[in-house]
């Protein structure tokens, strides 16, 4: 049952990330990384909240945590984007993208984890 829930959550997360990436590209131009950064931060906050609450049923963790949040967010695109921005001789953008995603993503996860723990 668990793997099925993971797959169902993932099948919602991946197209949503594609939508965010396409919206960012449509609004900000080709190669925009804003969509990927946004879903990575948002997914980190949701997963932080889910794990911070404690006592969340296993099925919900599989569906929303491992499946949806895990797939809404991505690490491979982040790594490849940093390489691409480096090749385009845009080290400032690469550093801002990488540093911003880490800072905002881990910060959002930490804040959500802490707030959920107070509930």
């Amino acid at each position, binding site marked *: 049952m668990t793997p099925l829930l993971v*797959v169902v959550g*993932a099948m919602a997360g991946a197209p949503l990330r594609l939508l965010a*990436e396409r919206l960012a590209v*449509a609004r900000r131009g080709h190669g925009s990384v804003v969509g990927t950064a946004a879903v990575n931060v948002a997914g980190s906050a949701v997963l*932080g909240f889910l794990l911070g609450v404690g006592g969340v049923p296993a099925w919900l963790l599989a569906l929303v945590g491992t499946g949806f949040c895990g797939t809404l*967010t991505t690490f491979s695109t982040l*790594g*490849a984007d940093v*390489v691409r921005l480096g090749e385009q001789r845009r080290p400032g953008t690469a550093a801002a993208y990488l540093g911003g995603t880490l800072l905002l*993503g881990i910060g959002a996860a930490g804040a959500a984890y802490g707030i959920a723990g107070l509930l």
Partner: protein
Amino acid sequence: MLPDDRAGGQGDSVIGYVAAALGGGLGALGRWGIAEALPHDAAGWPWATLLVNLTGCLVLGLLLGLVFARSPGSPWLRPFLGTGVLGGFTTFSALAVETVQLTDAGRPQLAAGYVVVSVVGGVGAAALGVMTGRSRLRQAPG
């Protein structure tokens, strides 16, 4: 120049979303399987996430250097493999929350080390994949 990893600019075709959903399901299933095989507690080094993230970066780099350079116009190939399979296989949210949990467990140095190894390793693996993919492409043109 390295092609963009995202499918933007290839239209808003519905097939891209379907391909991303199918690929994402497969990738997440692989990530779940590895997490089941390599369990860890909140105070331990997250081997499973590190493994999927580094190998996912390597394979995406290979695809970008080798496959996507050849067929940039396909409406489903990149959404399926890049956005779906590898996007679903790798994850940022687990990295972020595991970093928080390691810090919360009183191991901030281990948390910092985990972030550094993930980032340096991931970007390095993606670059290695791209270079390897391009050299293979030159050896076998067409």
